[in-house]
């Protein structure tokens, strides 16, 4: 995999979009394309990765534009954890059943294990690493510490990302509502009551999240 960590100039998106469309069509046509056509189409750095070829995409992660060439089978979760060193987003089940991998994609909470990275061309992704403002923690991160909303800490990034979204969506009106809208985020240590307290407190304080 190749990563271009340099920021892309502001006028680049359209170009990237065109590039991606071309790639998408290429992928869509894979099943019908004759083998020799595939061979001819491969750029030197787009070597085969198993039964697929690498795909280029561009997306914004925590405010930073990234141009990446990846295995199309790679999930957004594995892209973050394995290729970009953003291991704050956790792999709990890889089946979309535990919520540990929750990130925000264009402002919506999204299970990154159920999302192929190539589906996110042009998206803005925020992970737990992008939530705090430098050294200053996000109010919900502070509240998690205050209320001890975790034990082992493994589900925590997902709980925090979901909790922020829960408040932004307007689903933190009561303890029962929080419990309902946070039920996609499992915690085996059982920190649930403290997580609910943390979310309710931030909601009550009315701080912009």
């Amino acid at each position, binding site marked *: 995999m190749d990563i271009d960590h340099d920021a892309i100039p502001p006028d680049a998106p359209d170009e990237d979009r065109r590039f991606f469309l071309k790639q998408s069509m290429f992928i869509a046509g894979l099943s019908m394309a004759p083998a020799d056509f595939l061979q001819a189409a491969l750029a030197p750095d787009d070597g085969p990765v198993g039964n697929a070829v690498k795909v280029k995409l561009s997306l914004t992660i925590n405010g930073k534009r990234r141009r990446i060439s990846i295995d199309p089978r790679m999930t957004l979760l594995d892209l973050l954890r394995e290729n970009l060193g*953003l291991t704050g987003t956790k792999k709990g089940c890889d089946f979309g*059943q535990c919520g*540990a991998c929750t990130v925000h994609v264009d402002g919506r909470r999204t299970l990154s294990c159920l999302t192929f990275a190539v589906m996110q061309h042009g998206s803005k992704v925020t992970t737990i*690493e992008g939530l705090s403002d430098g050294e200053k923690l996000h109010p919900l991160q502070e509240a998690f510490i205050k209320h001890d909303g975790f034990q082992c800490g*493994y589900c925590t*990034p997902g709980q*925090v990302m979901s909790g922020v979204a829960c408040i932004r969506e307007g689903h933190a009106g009561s303890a029962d509502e*929080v419990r309902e809208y946070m039920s996609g985020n499992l915690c*085996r240590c059982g*920190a649930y009551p403290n997580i609910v307290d943390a979310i309710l407190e931030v909601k009550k304080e009315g701080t912009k999240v």
Partner: protein
Amino acid sequence: MNRQSLENPSDTSLSRVDGAAKVTGTAIYSAEYAVPGIVHAVLVTSTIAKGSITAIESHEAETVPGVLAVISHLNAITVPGWPPKKQPAERVPPGTAFRVFYDSLIYFDGQPVAMIVAGTHEQAAHAASLVRVTYRQEAHQTHFEKNMGKSGIPLNAQRAQNSPFQDYERGDASALHNADVRIDAEYTIPTQHHQPLEPHAIIAVWEGDDKLTVYDKNQGVKSAQGQLAQAFKLPRENVEVVSKYIGGAFGSGIRVWPHTLAAVIAAKQLKRPVKLVLGREQMFTSVGYRPYTKQKISIGAVKDGRLAGIVHEGTGQTSMYEEHLERTVFASRALYACPHVATRYRLLPLDVNTPTWMRGPGDATGMFALESAMDELAYALKTDPLEFRLKNYAESDPERNLPWSAKSLRECYELGAEKIGWKNRLPEPRSVKRNGMLLGYGMASSLYGFHRHPSRARAVMQADGSVIVQSATMDIGPGTGTAMTRIAAKVLGMNAQKVRFDLGHSALPDAPGQNGSSTIPSVGSAVHVVCEALKSKLIALAGEMSDRFKATGQVVAKNGQLFSPAEDKDGLSYADILKYHHLNELEVMEESKSGAERDQYSMYSFGCHFVEVEVNPLTGEVRVTRVVTCADVGAIINYKTARSQSIGGIVGGIGMALMEHSAMDHRFGRYVTTDFASYHIPVHADVPPIEVYYIDKPDVQANPIGSKGLGEIAIVGVAGAIANAVFHATGKRLRELPITPDKLI
């Protein structure tokens, strides 16, 4: 002092020392270490429960771009600590840990049979799907109920006269015949899995042929180091185990499992760092489970409510190759003042992987049965269940005939009853409705004979007056570092901000793994002792600077300074002491272990749980709507994190009681519950407000800090309390877990 809420101004708890790392995602777990040149492994597992491998067709997998190796028993390097392979392969005698990639034999479904190693996870996963394994299948036995006749006395008990798993009898259990009221009942707990949110994972790195580093999810770096050193015939110090952050374990990380060795084998064979992360489905067959257990209890009482006798039998599932033993029937020997008690424990080997300890091992299982039976007997006697327990309260340990080191279970009962409003409960089952739901209250006791193991700790005072305390203990979630920081800060009279506690690394001073509610009693004591020793050294050094510190008895440590006398306005700071003596640092190492007190006293943690449930009369759905839990664990070190541990135990108990069930399709000997969609654990919506209370009275006999283990009693008894509340709500006595709606309609 009873403290009940974070709002309580008397609560001076520390927030977790690793809290910021955990909420920002910067805490690094086993699979997350950035090791240059790392390659990725994916396991291929057996699809039969018993038989042998006849062929592994891996050519197609090997041609997948990026694939470096397909490792199996056909080509794996020899593990030097294992005996030479037999030709033809022979089944191992019971008591032999499973050896991965050793020979062609299959002992259970889901057994690792091959491993793909490739440049990326995607390549390895795809290649793994292309490996074709063919087997010679043999008839397997995985059905517990159908094989009950094959259960037997554990070899452990056959071989050792003093084994606690021997049949036990005190008094004359036939006294049960004289009971006025008697209950004979059977209890079933299905297999349940730990399923921590972090899957088990390892990164194995060899430097040359004789130096191994593993970043591994486990509950004991020292025991993992020892087990790996033994397997690869290396000096212990050549094996480094790093396990700083553990994403939950609950027992699943107490031993080194086959997948860990598989990754170490692959890394050695390929001379590359290898990362292996188990898939969620593999977590059902790779890291143990709470074993399927059947229990029979015969219990009787005379009219005035005194117990006449208890006979408690338990049979647990194990594998064909190892014995797994649990304290299933032990609680019946110690909890109540009953003169006539007999217990029997049996094992049933099946074609499954070996179980292991899961939170509250044995006791959580056994106390479900005992506390259900006590409740049933109380109703039969027309006595209040709490009154009945108080009537049979054991003032000393009836099993060992020893005084308790401390026991405030009576105070726990009283406090819990008051908080839940027990006296307002109408005794008649199925007599109260709230919002159309059947309302019920139940309670159960809890106990656990917490462990204490020899532990060492090092304390190093820095030139700036801060201190680093180290021990090879673990934190699987309870907040070990926070509690130890609190202990050190208290002894040294320092701000906790100036204390750093290091754990989770095999190079640190010896400490036990995190299990058996032993960490606070063992390591907490060592930290206390080493900090006391450091303080003594500082006082001695201060005495060389000024005469007023020579009267060591009147020296007091506070705010990072020594004062003598205590009311003196001018203190001498630790930094100044080190500076005066031209010391860059001051190091002390101490060991702490139990002594004769373990023979003079019987030591247990105690507690009780009160539960309110609502049961839908039409659908049979049970909702736990309120829980009050009280614990007597001696002195509470850090209320905030202790409270979370208690809450976590209740949540685990709700899962155990109402939803957790690893179901197997016995035609194949294979679990059908292989993910969180089918193996249900409690979610936010399942967990009500939980009130936690502690007696918080030091057990001065137990250890220097007067604190006992909390992890296990938090869950022990919870399933019984819920089952008892369900009976009160519905009039139905359910003796088989989990209590799912189908059993109530």
